[in-house]
């Protein structure tokens, strides 16, 4: 049942303010988030399975983000995290940010070996994880308790993708 060896994603977030949802994100406190929850949904919604990136994004970033113009200054960027082993296979995560704001999170690649149980778990978990990543910054939280295996692989790839973006 527990097949893969332990893998550690070590991230020294504070050093470079790496994680959009581990931050310094004072602008994204909960009062804003009460309205931001539907907004977050629409952020993930408009591009179902698509690869929205580049010049078309800043407008949607503006409507989403209650935070400063400085965030817009760095523009919209996309990165793909490394392929990470998780209990049911290998996955990698793609993230699009505007400044420090996550606009979109999705799976860049996944191989769960075609096992029906793995596929079932992935189908259940991945939309949840995409949503959680958006929610995490909407609610200004530093972690989620209760998720399990798929989420850890997802988070690791996501963190690496975010790190590569913040490294400029």
């Amino acid at each position: 049942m527990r097949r893969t060896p332990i893998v550690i994603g070590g991230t020294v977030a504070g050093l470079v303010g790496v994680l959009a949802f581990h931050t310094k994100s004072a602008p994204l406190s909960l009062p804003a988030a009460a309205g931001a929850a539907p907004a977050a949904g629409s952020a993930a919604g408009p591009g179902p399975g698509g690869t929205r990136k580049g010049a078309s994004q800043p407008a949607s970033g503006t409507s989403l983000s209650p935070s400063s113009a400085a965030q817009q200054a760095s523009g919209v960027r996309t990165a793909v995290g490394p392929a990470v082993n998780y209990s049911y296979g290998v996955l990698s995560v793609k993230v699009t940010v505007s400044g420090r704001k996550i606009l979109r999170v999705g799976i860049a690649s996944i191989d769960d070996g075609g096992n029906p149980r793995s596929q079932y778990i992935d189908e259940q978990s991945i939309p949840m994880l995409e949503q959680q990543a958006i929610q995490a910054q909407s609610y200004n939280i530093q972690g989620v308790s209760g998720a399990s295996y798929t989420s850890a692989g997802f988070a690791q790839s996501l963190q690496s993708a975010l790190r590569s973006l913040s490294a400029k």
Partner: protein
Amino acid sequence: MGTIVTIDVYTAAGVTDAEVAELCEQLDRARSVLHHADEVFSTWQPHSPISRLRSAEITRAQAPAEVAEVLERCATARDLSGGWFDPWAMPGGIDPTGYVKGWAAQNALAAFSAEYIVGAIVNAAGDIASLGSLRNGEPFRIGIVDPLAPRQLAEIVDLTGAIATSGSYERGNHLIDPHLGCPCARAASASVTGPDLGLADALATGLAVAGTPGLAFIEPLDKYEALIIGFDGSRRCTEGFPLAPHQGTLPH
């Protein structure tokens, strides 16, 4: 343990290169702690000490010292949980997995110590050990997954120390009732906060099996608090559970 652990360290502004190097060493140490725990306690590796103990190839006295330490702590957790957490009642022989993940993460957290570290979080697949706080001195905020709608958060917690959540919603029903010896959960999820993640993890496992009546064994424990989410979405918690105030309702 077969899981993934993420570590985040929050530092004071303006750390030096030497301090970064020191942090990287501490990160390496934390990683070694976790790998070592995996080697000793992995129940799916046939040659791990815990597997050899389960198959009676070695005795408890012949196992590495940390095995005795963990089993002793498991016995304490079993007593504190009123027997609802019981590694000795698992099918297939003794299985301290419900304690070890949290214990290892807590030990990994101990690798981080420096005056420029304001806070650190070790997140072992949803079981979280932390020290310190955010840069502004406010506690870390941790979301609890809604077991009935796992795309959503059910609650947010102001975290001091550790939080573990048990439930059967991602991995199917893996919670074993030690009294009946078969899979059985009486809560959709159970979360326990407290100073030590190993004990919190064990108590959350026991509480998910025991259901609401189990809150009675958490209430008298100093510094440990618990929240149960029922299959009908109802919430029950101990008096001091650190729910963070939030405006409006969380989507669920």
